[in-house]
């Protein structure tokens, strides 16, 4: 089956331009990309990023971010950031082909505060709306930036932990967390330590862990293809309260334990689908220790690890534009009445029209 990506192109059109709007957690990101006509899997037809602007809401040390405060932050910034993204991209509004927004999963109030702006702009400018699954956005952006063609995807962030492989037009979940996400586990540990939430709690833990080296044994809780992390968090919180161990060693041990579990289930998924490529996406994906551990495992299997830097790992608008533009080119169009966001929107609910 040969896919036709250009049924919507007007005569003479050379490019598609998409505006992506992301606001599912504590970051608001607006991005604009331009993609040439023709098969997007051809390396010559890579997307060009015209602008990628993000603003992060950080709670004070020792606290987590509340949906209400995050929604207020997003509302405060959304229109200004859209204006800035458009002026930085040096495009005219009538050149935009589609407006893409995160439809889920994520926190309800922040998602809703962004979709309101997306709907209004879509109606004002008469440009089609495209609803994008946040996880699919991460996967498509990772594939686009790294050029990995059919990898096993490890999606690790503050809200999600999933091992995903593509099969017959779905991104299928091979394994996932049974309770909290790995990023959430790190964030909450950072709260116990009362360290800064800026630029991100996980980054600060990573820096502390580099100074640690003594491995303290923590529960290792892989359950088949899934994993569980709330018990580990509880355990290490108790250790912290007893104050017998250095904070650096605790950070080091927590990272080693969590990442070893992630590497284990990723390796098993690779064996299942006979793949030797791994793509790491999501905020925790910028952790260099995780990338390093994954590399050691993948080297034994003669494969490759693909990872991106913080511009594309951490939530951003460009990834929503990237997944949205593919959906748009395959005929996607989200009616205003159907543009309701959902906190629960599983990766495998999306029919991947743009892959064979």
């Amino acid at each position, binding site marked *: 089956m040969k896919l036709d990506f250009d049924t919507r192109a007007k005569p003479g059109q050379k490019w598609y331009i998409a505006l992506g709007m992301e606001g599912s957690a504590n970051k608001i990101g607006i991005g604009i990309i331009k993609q040439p006509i023709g098969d997007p899997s051809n390396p010559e037809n890579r997307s060009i990023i015209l602008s990628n602007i993000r603003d992060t809401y950080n709670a004070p040390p020792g606290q987590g971010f509340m949906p209400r405060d995050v929604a207020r932050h997003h509302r405060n910034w959304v*229109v200004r950031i859209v204006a800035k993204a458009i002026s930085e991209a040096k495009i005219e509004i009538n050149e935009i082909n589609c407006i893409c927004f995160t439809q889920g999963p994520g926190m309800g109030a922040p998602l*809703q505060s962004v979709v*309101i702006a997306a709907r209004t702009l879509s109606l*004002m400018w008469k440009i089609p709306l495209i609803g994008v699954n946040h996880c699919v956005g991460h996967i498509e952006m990772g594939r686009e930036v790294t050029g990995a063609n059919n990898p096993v995807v490890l999606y690790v962030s503050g809200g999600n932990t999933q091992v995903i492989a593509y099969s017959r037009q779905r991104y299928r979940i091979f394994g996932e967390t049974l309770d909290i996400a790995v990023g959430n586990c790190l964030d909450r540990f950072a709260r116990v330590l009362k360290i800064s939430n800026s630029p991100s709690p996980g980054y600060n833990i990573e820096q502390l862990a580099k100074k640690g080296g003594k491995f303290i044994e923590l529960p290792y809780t892989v359950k088949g293809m899934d994993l569980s992390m709330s018990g580990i968090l509880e355990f290490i919180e108790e250790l912290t309260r007893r104050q017998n161990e250095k904070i650096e060693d605790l950070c080091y041990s927590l990272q080693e334990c969590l990442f070893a579990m992630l590497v284990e289930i990723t390796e098993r998924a690779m064996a299942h689908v006979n793949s030797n490529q791994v793509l790491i996406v999501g905020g925790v994906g910028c952790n260099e220790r995780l990338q390093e551990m994954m590399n050691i495992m993948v080297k034994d299997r003669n494969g490759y690890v693909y990872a991106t830097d913080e511009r594309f790992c951490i939530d951003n608008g460009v990834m929503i534009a990237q997944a949205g533009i593919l959906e748009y080119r395959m005929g996607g169009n989200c009616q205003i009445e159907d543009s309701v966001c959902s906190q629960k929107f599983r990766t495998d609910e999306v029919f991947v029209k743009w892959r064979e």
Partner: protein
Amino acid sequence: MSQLPVSLSINIPFLNNNHALIAQKSLSPDPMLKPDTVNVQYKIKNNTILNIIVNGIDDRVIRVTVNNLLENLKTIIECFETF
């Protein structure tokens, strides 16, 4: 249908009919979280006025709902102003 004894009507004037219609269409898709305690109706009056009627079980849910509606309207109006 349960009883919703408290109600509030707000009128938001817009520059033109198009703006009022866009505001109505942007707000109306989102369902209320608890439809048995509050419901909202949107109407266009005199071509340019968006009339919103909120019916709720008590003052508190009305306040919360209306606050949220006004916040959303601020975003919509900021879009009109900026672009």
